[in-house]
């Protein structure tokens, strides 16, 4: 018999009068991994934050271990054994691993004031030992020197150290490589055996099938599927539940957009012997034809982003030339790259891509303004450009003056793409085209990329999602430790081959 750890009934939450979630029932058993799924804005984060005490519900009841609880703070939730690990880490970068784990634990402070670093470190080693990681992370090392994956492990250890019975992981794999995800999942499986229940908030379907026992799906703030055993739920059924419509052709392979016979089109883009500023990426050359979509696959840290940034002059490069339509891009500034017809959509739209405090209108027009705008703004033209793009890319926004920060992830990504598409570049480089984007917007973005390619644009994609590369790209490049280890056509490429070349390489080249 499954023992119920958390039971939430009829949960409701409003934000200034707007209902975010309503009538949500949710159960977490001891020792299970329960996936909480849904598109962006479905309410899965809201629900998980209510359970963790970050938000307070406006209706409904929550029981933990059979007792009615209404957490008014994260601290209270933690004291009752419920912890959350969010995407924004709560770690202090300047303190050591051990100090972070026991930051608020008065047992480890002499006279409640002076940190007992030795005891902290010893206990940290014990905790790490539980996962066989005592040799991988030094308790004394500062958190800022850790990788994202290691920080996540530390967050989980922190939860374990407070005797958490339920741990909520909010998008835990968002910035992890395949191998790091394996390590994380391994830890989750071990802890699960000791009776801890996990709630994983995610929209990565593959991973959820790998790790979860049951799935709950929310859509538009309502409960669609409640605690269905993962093994009994088919993938297309899950997607239908999340999206609310059929998405049987996510990558648009069967779309009626007429593809260019790119192999017989002229070469639009050529990179010769590109070496990045640190010399990590060395002497990489490749060509992309008009209408071709080239994909760069590989693990995080393989040098793909560094390569693209060097090509675009976003970072200085140590050598190599870039040609657009056979003409060399002479300058070494971003401006000269854009002038030559290269567009660049960076990896992290929040940090590098969008101006969050400017409106949709101002964001969409910014690149065009920078490239060919006169000293004085043309408001009319900018507005008509903006409406054009909103329509073409199906951007959902209440009005064009809305700040970009208030849009959903998918719509933000579309605004970022629109900014560059407005320039009609000859070559568009997109680093992670659909990271943190829900399935509906994903399929829109793939359709847009296809139609751009059909109109003759050369597109270069960097993606960590192998199915995306296989589904969208015509040519697949695999990188490993700063080198291209394999080049394949779409028909030759398989998930296994990409996985192989992105971990060990072929020993040649």
């Amino acid at each position, binding site marked *: 018999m499954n023992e119920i750890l958390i039971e939430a009934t009829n949960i409701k939450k409003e*934000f200034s009068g707007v209902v975010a979630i309503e009538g949500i029932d949710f159960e977490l058993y001891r020792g299970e991994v329960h996936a909480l799924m849904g598109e962006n804005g479905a309410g899965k984060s809201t629900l998980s934050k209510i359970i963790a005490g970050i938000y307070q519900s406006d209706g409904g009841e929550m029981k933990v271990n059979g007792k009615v609880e209404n957490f008014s703070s994260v601290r209270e939730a933690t004291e009752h054994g419920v912890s959350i690990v969010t995407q924004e880490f709560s770690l202090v970068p300047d303190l050591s691993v051990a100090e972070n784990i026991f930051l608020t634990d008065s047992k480890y402070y002499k006279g409640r004031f002076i940190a007992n670093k030795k005891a902290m470190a010893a206990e940290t080693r014990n905790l790490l030992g539980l996962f066989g990681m005592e040799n991988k992370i030094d308790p004394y090392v500062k958190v800022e020197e850790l990788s994202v994956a290691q920080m996540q492990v530390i967050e989980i250890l922190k939860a374990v150290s407070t005797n958490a019975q339920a741990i909520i992981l909010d998008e835990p794999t968002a910035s992890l490589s395949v191998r790091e995800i394996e390590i994380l999942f391994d830890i989750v499986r071990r802890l699960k055996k000791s009776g801890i229940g996990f709630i994983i908030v995610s929209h990565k379907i593959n991973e959820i099938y790998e790790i979860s026992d049951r799935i709950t799906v929310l859509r538009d703030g309502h409960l669609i599927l409640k605690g269905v055993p993962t093994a009994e739920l088919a993938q297309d059924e899950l997607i239908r539940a999340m999206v609310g419509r059929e998405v049987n052709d996510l990558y648009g392979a069967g779309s009626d957009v007429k593809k260019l016979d790119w192999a017989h089109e002229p070469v639009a883009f050529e990179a010769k012997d590109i070496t990045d500023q640190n010399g990590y990426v060395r002497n990489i050359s490749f060509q992309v034809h008009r209408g071709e979509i080239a994909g760069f696959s590989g693990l995080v840290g393989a040098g793909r982003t560094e390569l693209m940034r060097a090509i675009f002059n976003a970072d200085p490069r140590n050598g190599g030339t870039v040609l657009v339509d056979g003409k060399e891009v002479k300058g070494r500034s971003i401006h000269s790259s*854009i002038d030559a017809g290269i567009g660049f959509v960076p990896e992290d739209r929040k940090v590098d891509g969008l*101006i969050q405090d400017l409106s949709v209108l101002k964001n969409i027009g910014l690149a065009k303004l*920078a490239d060919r705008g006169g000293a004085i703004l043309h408001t009319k033209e900018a507005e008509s450009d903006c409406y054009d793009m909103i*329509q073409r890319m199906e951007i959902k926004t209440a009005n064009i003056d809305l700040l970009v920060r208030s849009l959903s992830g998918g719509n933000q990504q579309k605004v970022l793409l629109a900014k560059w598409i407005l320039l009609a570049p000859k070559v568009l480089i997109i680093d992670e085209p659909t990271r943190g984007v829900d399935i509906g917007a994903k399929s829109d973005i793939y359709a847009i990329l296809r139609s751009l390619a059909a109109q003759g644009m050369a597109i270069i994609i960097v993606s960590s999602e192998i199915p995306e590369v296989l589904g969208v790209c015509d040519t697949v490049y695999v990188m490993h430790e700063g080198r291209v280890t394999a080049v394949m056509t779409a028909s030759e490429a398989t998930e296994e081959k990409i996985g192989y070349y992105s971990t060990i390489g072929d020993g040649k080249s």
Partner: protein
Amino acid sequence: MNSGNTLQSGGLGRRIGREFKTELSMLVIFVVFFAVMSFASPYFLTTNNIMNVMSQVSSTSMLAIGMTIVIITSGIDLSVGSILGLSGMIGGMVLMNTQNVVLGVAVILLVGMVMGLVNGFLIGYLELPAFIVTLGMMEIGRSLDYVISDANTASKFPAIYNFLGTGRIGGVFPVYIIFIFGMFAIFIWIMAKTKFGRFLYAIGSNKEAARLTGINVKFNVMMAYVISGLMCGFAAWIMTSRLMACDATYGDGNEMDAIAAAVIGGTSMSGGKGTLWGTIIGVFLVGFLRNALNILGVNPYWQGTAIGAVIVIAVLAEKLSKVKVKKGK
């Protein structure tokens, strides 16, 4: 063009309401304050008093324009008071010795711009922290002011020099009022309607994203400080023209008034947000508040408390409105 879309573009009124929420609420506060004071004292709402206040805030308002622009780029300029002092002093000495108004004014503005250029180069191109660079410039400027003047007052300016500070068109309308509003109009237009203005907002909100969009961040940041320096020159011009003299203490501490005006007007210290409309309100709110306290006979020692409270309340109001927006998501 907008067919098939569920966009609510809204009328002009609604769009103004969306873009100028903070400014509008500060305007309401200002109007209420003004109305209350008009009833509280018969002296408050008189032409004389209003012109008096305008004259008092004329140089601060120039500094506040530059300060707002710099803060929008997520910088700060602590040296404006010192640049005012030094440019006024050098220009004043040229005026005194040559009796050439055109040359004197040119020198005042040029000194301001050059000092702004030094700030801008260090902050924009060498990427040094604005707070430290302008703190240094504040000390250097004030020190040079004393060195050059030897703590003497520059005066004996040609009589015609007082035209900007106290001149009246047709013997009635003060020139400095036209000048203040003219300057605000020009820079409001620059910030809202030119590429340069748009770039400054973009840079202040997200420098890296602006750079990757092809904006020349270094140059534009430098230009913001050059403008701030130029505005210090204008402030020095107005001040010395009004007082027909310049001594080494002019402008001392004025940077704080300029920052206060910008912040009260809704400019965010973290950059990317704020308008000069708000700064106008900020300048006048501080000016008229001081004036009201004087008229009401409040002990002048309490003035700082009143103005300090207004600053904190303004920031608090902005913070609260932000929390609401965040929750509203």
